[in-house]
């Protein structure tokens, strides 16, 4: 799914990381750990194709195969969940959009709030909607940056269940590895 060798990233004179090798099978689970500012987010952006490595070789799947959850949920706050998901379903060419959007909103407990603006949501509800957006096109590769952030026990349980499905490749970056450590097939620790 992903193959990277000798990856390094610099911003001007500042070195974010260097000499990183990444290999992920179609059903692999890579756990990326490290303190804040150690380069976890930069690596995930690189694996999403949003940031190019300064040096190194990186093979990635096509954009349509990637579901990327960033620190922010990446949804428009002045739109409703339905409007957000319909927009991305359109851009991802999802057939039977209404059904898929409805199913995800039900699954993540947002159906009742489907016509409310996202700006009125708690951070946890926004995170749930971000997960809906990520899963909308059933991507075979999930890149999740601190996915448990702001989720309550129920939301974290839903995410746990999703990650345990094991039918796709996952890269999870977190500074609290305890929740998903048992799922990891590979680890990458930033200092």
């Amino acid at each position: 799914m992903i193959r990277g060798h000798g990856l390094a990233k610099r911003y001007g004179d500042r070195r974010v990381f260097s000499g990183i090798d990444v290999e992920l099978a179609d059903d692999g689970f890579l756990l990326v750990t490290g303190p804040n500012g150690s380069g976890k987010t930069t690596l995930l952006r690189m694996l999403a194709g949003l940031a190019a490595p300064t040096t190194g070789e990186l093979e990635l799947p096509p954009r349509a195969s990637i579901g990327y959850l960033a620190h922010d949920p990446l949804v428009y706050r002045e739109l409703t969940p339905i409007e957000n998901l319909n927009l991305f379903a359109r851009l991802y060419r999802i057939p039977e959009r209404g059904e898929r959007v409805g199913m995800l909103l039900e699954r993540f407990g947002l159906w009742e709030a489907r016509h409310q603006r996202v700006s009125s949501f708690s951070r946890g509800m926004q995170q749930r909607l971000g997960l809906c957006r990520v899963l909308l096109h059933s991507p075979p590769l999930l890149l999740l940056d601190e996915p448990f952030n702001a989720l309550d026990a129920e939301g974290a349980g839903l995410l746990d269940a999703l990650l345990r499905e094991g039918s796709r490749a996952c890269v999870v970056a977190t500074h609290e590895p305890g929740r998903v450590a048992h799922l990891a097939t590979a680890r990458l620790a930033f200092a």
Partner: protein
Amino acid sequence: MTYLRDVGALARKDLLLELRAKETLPAMLLFVVAMLTIFHFALPSGSSDAATLGLLWSALVLTALLGLTRAFVAEREQGMFDALVLAPCDRSAIWLGKSLSVLAFLVCAEAVALPAFALFFSGVDARTVAAVALADLGICTVGTLFGAMAVAGRARELLLPLLFLPAAIPIVVGGVGGYLWFLALYDVLFAVLAWATFEYVVAET
């Protein structure tokens, strides 16, 4: 057709955001009316039509700049560029959708500005209206490209005016002179340039 549907969905999203937030269009309307009012009192009576027409074009270009500075606010503040760029649609659809929404705001501002100009100064002839319509296309295509470049830069508040205003000089020249063919040529050239280069503008290195 799929490309056009993507463009339509993206433009509709921007119009909906503006309908909800009501930030850009009211500011543009207030700005252009205030500019024309200031010019009305600043310009000596008996000034030539050419001079007043020059002020109209200055007001329109600066109003467009105001709209362009707001064009990518949601994408910048909510990190939405990443989500849009990751979608498997043609990335130029993002540029075209945004250009269309900026065009809609600019046309609305001009629907107020041109009658206000006629009230304060002199009537607006059909040639001027045609020139404004052609100029709008150029302003939106090139301005949206520069707006996206500015979002990625650090000094974005400085970058957009520095890029856009020099590029708008030919528009003012063509508009004041009433050179419709020149404005049409500008539109075609910059539309093709912006369409072809937007992919590279949003791709991070």
